[in-house]
């Protein structure tokens, strides 16, 4: 693949996460009908174009991956705990896991202690997985292993882990020019993910509006009830703008579904295909847009085989 396209797509996977997260954040919890048809960056929580826990954890994951040359559970747990800014809107499960990690508990024990030992089914492992996809694109086995390992640092439930692997696979497929939904279906190992992704494939024939897609696929903060809607959004729309907008308009966990769809769509089309108005609004600062771009470029270079 031409190296410029490869770098552009790598940036797209991370900036697509960031842009979708920032676009969806003001509508978190909203019904699909309450979300406008055209999205612009709105002033909410920490300001216009700011990111939430999704991107903050993706940044920490990218940094840890680069520093360690792979997923190291303890290092990654510490990286998440160090990066944690409660104002970014973390869920209660992840907040508790990070508290335990900070107090010295091994991440696997911390993650496994949640929900009476079942572990979290949340989409927190899937939403942040784009850096893993960039690093391991083209290496199916390495990708699945790294996605699982990255998930288990905070999410022990098999559904959350499967959702992370499926989302990573969809992004990686987009990065190398393959169909995200087909790759996701082939990677899914749980009935819940396989069933919803099969439904998503059927929806490609009928192309329902966002509210109906959300009703069929889910728009909740669990992995298996949000990843299928994100992958469907990207599969059903060629442009980054259309895919990300549709994902946010599914309502519910809008920032995460937007981030995940944005990651896939911009991994396919490249960062240069993200609307310039969206990019220009993204927050800067030490861990802002430029930092995210550089992480993507370094991950792309690290992944060259």
């Amino acid at each position: 693949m031409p190296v410029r396209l490869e770098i552009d797509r790598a940036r797209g996977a991370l900036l697509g996460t960031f842009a979708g997260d920032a676009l969806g954040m003001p509508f978190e919890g909203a019904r699909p009908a309450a979300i406008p048809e055209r999205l612009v960056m709105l002033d909410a929580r920490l300001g216009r174009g700011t990111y939430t826990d999704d991107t903050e954890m993706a940044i920490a994951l990218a940094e840890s991956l680069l520093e360690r040359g792979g997923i190291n559970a303890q290092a990654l747990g510490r990286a998440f705990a160090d990066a944690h800014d409660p104002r970014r809107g973390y869920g209660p499960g992840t907040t508790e896991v990070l508290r335990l990690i900070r107090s010295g508990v091994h991440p696997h024990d911390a993650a496994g202690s949640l929900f009476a030992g079942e572990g979290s089914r949340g989409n927190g492992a899937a939403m942040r997985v784009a850096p893993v996809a960039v690093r391991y694109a083209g290496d199916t086995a390495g990708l699945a292993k790294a996605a699982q390992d990255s998930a288990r640092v905070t999410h022990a439930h098999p559904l959350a882990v499967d959702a992370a692997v499926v989302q990573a696979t969809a992004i990686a497929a987009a990065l190398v020019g393959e169909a995200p939904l087909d790759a996701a279906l082939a990677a899914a190992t749980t009935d819940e993910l396989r069933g919803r992704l099969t439904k998503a494939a059927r929806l490609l024939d009928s192309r329902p509006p966002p509210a109906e897609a959300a009703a069929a696929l889910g728009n909740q903060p669990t992995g298996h009830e949000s990843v299928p809607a994100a992958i469907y959004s990207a599969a059903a729309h060629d442009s980054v703008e259309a895919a990300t907008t549709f994902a946010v308009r599914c309502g519910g966990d809008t920032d995460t579904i937007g981030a995940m769809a944005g990651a896939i769509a911009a991994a396919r089309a490249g960062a240069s295909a993200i609307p310039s108005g969206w990019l220009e609004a993204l927050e800067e600062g030490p861990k802002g847009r430029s930092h995210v771009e550089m992480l993507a470029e370094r991950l792309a270079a690290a992944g060259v085989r």
Partner: protein
Amino acid sequence: MRRETWLPATAASAGVARSIVRQAAAEAGLEGERTWDLVLATTEAISNAVRHGAAWPNDCILLATRRSPRGLQVEVWDLGTFDSALAPAPLEATSGRGMQIIAALVDRLEVKHEDGRTLVRLEKRRGSDSRRASASGVRGAPCLRRAGAFGDRSRQGGAARHLRG
């Protein structure tokens, strides 16, 4: 118009440099993809200066942007040696790939060492101007122009030959 910014000689300055160059490129009318190229090339030049070069007495390196008739020039000034500016990095390195990647990304690259200062000057041209340059034979392969009596031409050629992609 030429604008100068002193950046602390730390890795974090690459991000600041990106913002500055992105803004200057927009003002110079550089298209999106060309801006991405120049921003990445600037990042590499700053990383190179921070890692292999030497800071000015104020612990900074100097970044300058200047509109040229055909696009935008970016200059990175440090007090390192010429060799440090050309330090080759292995292709598997995750940063500091330096001149190899820079040369592939810009329309013109100049490396100069004079009076104890090292200058890396990059130029990216607007698409229409770049095509004109190419037609008249000016562009073609990225131009690694050597200035003064410093450096080793074979090493520069070597860097250019090892471009990825």
